């Protein structure tokens, strides 16, 4: 009996925490844990180091050390006695730079494009900075003021002395930014409406939404662009037929909307039934239930997919060249084909420059989405 009472034990003082083991802390600990933990990881680490050593120095040499930074024609970038192995031809990009940005937009009017870029950047920052003040007004600015301002600036308004610049003269980054922005701004709300339509209980709405989504998703984006630019004029009288760029814009926006609708539908399906029931039980109407309870949750879940679609859309804008519009990539194509710049490294440099631009834009969107996700996750935990 006494053996049992001997086993009674009551702790009187809490044990102090011990410091972490030395091998797990500091740089050495990190290296050991992440790069050299087991034989397999040691091998992989060494292979990676070898690949980096093999690839990075030649790239730096080509694009930075041996690169040609100035010059006014192909001669600057050709191999010569002074430069036996010429690298990237940045001189080409410098000379053509304003064409890449404005296309054939008249020289004297280019300040209007600059002003548009500024107004757009201001709106994007106002709307996207999570800590920015009065984001409601920011939204009004972005969705109401900015489109009108942009139209007046870019297209022109003779009444206030701005010459009309036909869209056939627009080009380069300007066109890419306009097409991508309109595609993004239109596709999200339209996609949400289509997704809601697809889940609607009204057969007419449902069939229309499903039909639209499946049809647009079932054809390549190039086909949609061709249809928008070739078929649209068949249905509208010629003098009312919209401008070529507008037609392409409609095509891109509709195409992106169909994809967005499917992305949003996935988000809607992820919201538990109980949320619909709780919101209905409180007496919310269908629209309020959607806007206040379901969509905020659905869009949160699906934010990575939405941004993914935006990124895809941004790169798909390069396809507008098939209907004869000079987007950013197309201007580089045109410039590199210029005989006065026919040098072996010009094409590579032009495409790398294009890649850098698209990467910067897409990576920016991706980073922004990450920030928002982390912030949302922090708010809810």
């Amino acid at each position, binding site marked *: 009996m006494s053996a049992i009472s001997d086993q009674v034990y009551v702790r009187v003082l809490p044990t102090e925490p011990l410091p972490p083991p030395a091998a797990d802390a500091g740089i050495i600990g990190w290296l050991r844990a992440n790069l050299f933990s087991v034989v397999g990881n040691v091998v992989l680490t060494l292979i990676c180091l070898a690949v980096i050593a093999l690839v990075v120095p030649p790239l730096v040499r080509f694009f930075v050390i041996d690169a040609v930074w100035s010059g006014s024609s192909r001669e600057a970038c050709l191999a010569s006695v002074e430069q036996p192995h010429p690298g990237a031809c940045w001189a080409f990009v410098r000379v053509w730079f304003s064409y890449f940005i404005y296309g054939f937009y008249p020289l004297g009017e280019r300040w209007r494009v600059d002003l548009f870029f500024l107004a757009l950047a201001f709106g994007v920052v106002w709307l996207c900075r999570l800590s920015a003040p009065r984001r409601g007004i920011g939204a009004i600015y972005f969705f109401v003021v900015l489109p009108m301002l942009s139209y007046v600036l870019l297209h022109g308004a003779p009444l206030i002395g701005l010459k009309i610049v036909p869209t056939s003269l627009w080009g380069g980054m300007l066109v890419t930014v306009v097409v991508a922005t309109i595609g993004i701004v239109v596709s999200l709300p339209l996609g949400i409406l289509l997704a809601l339509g697809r889940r609607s209980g009204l057969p007419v709405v449902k069939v229309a939404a499903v039909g639209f989504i499946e049809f647009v998703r079932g054809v390549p984006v190039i086909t949609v662009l061709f249809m928008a630019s070739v078929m649209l004029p068949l249905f509208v009288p010629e003098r009312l037929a919209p401008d070529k760029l507008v037609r392409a814009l409609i095509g891109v926006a509709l195409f992106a909307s169909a994809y967005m609708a499917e992305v949003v539908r996935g988000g809607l399906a992820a919201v538990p039934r109980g949320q619909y029931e709780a919101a*209905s039980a*409180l007496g919310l109407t269908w629209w309020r239930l959607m806007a206040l309870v379901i969509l905020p949750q659905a869009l949160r879940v699906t934010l990575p997919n939405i941004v993914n679609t935006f990124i895809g859309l941004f790169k798909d804008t390069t396809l507008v060249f098939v209907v004869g519009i000079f987007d950013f990539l197309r201007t580089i194509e045109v410039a590199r084909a210029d005989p006065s710049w026919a040098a072996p490294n010009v094409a590579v440099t032009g495409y790398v420059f294009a890649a850098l631009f698209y990467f910067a834009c897409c990576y920016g969107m991706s980073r922004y989405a990450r920030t928002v996700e982390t912030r949302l996750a922090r708010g809810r*935990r």
Partner: protein
Amino acid sequence: MQEGSGSSSAAMPGAEVAVEIAGLDKWYGDFHVLRDVNLKVARGERIVICGPSGGGKSTLLRCINRLEDWQRGRIVVDGLELTDDPKRILVVRRDVGMVFQQFNLFPHLTVLENCTLAPIWVRHMPKRDAEALAMNYLARVKIPEQAHKYPARLSGGQQQRVAIARALCMNPNIMLFDEPTSALDPEMVKEVLDTMVALAADGITMLVVSHEMGFARQVADRVILMAEGQIVEINAPKNFFDHPQHERTRAFLKQIIH
């Protein structure tokens, strides 16, 4: 809240009818889930519905605010018959609060926003008034200090009390509780039941689907046993537990009381 009639009339069935269910039949496909259910609930009455799972308790409750529809029979809530008319359904839902087994708080809104959502958007109450009202009810369920947290940071018991406060913010005449303590850890059941007991003392009409027999004994005016989609027995709690009339009731009570 409830005015006039209060708790004094609560024990007098037939004074004024809050919910009337007549000849209700419902099928899920071939499955006859509700069979000729008839029930009159007086204003201020507290009813506890129990019975084996799959017996149609929750379904019946969810018909009262038309989260479920039915094929035959009628339900009249506060003198208003529930039809297919969406406007009428909304009117009834504004008057009937519901608390769910899984709480169903809105995870993207703070506790306070959960409570003010419906007053602001359904009752069109100014935000300031709605917040004062919500704080009042959060104090009544004893968690005003959690108002600015998100639901995920609360314990199950606290979440369920928020859900009760959220329903009360609409000043409902009738409260429906669908197994409000079934998803809770044992140590949190009491805090939720205490809240419901306090609510019952205020004289609001309550229909509670629950297996908390202690609660039923303490609070209910009538206890109902539902099985196979039918009401098997309706009785005063004392008789229900001590002298059950129906064989099915005796079998059920034997199952849950050891």
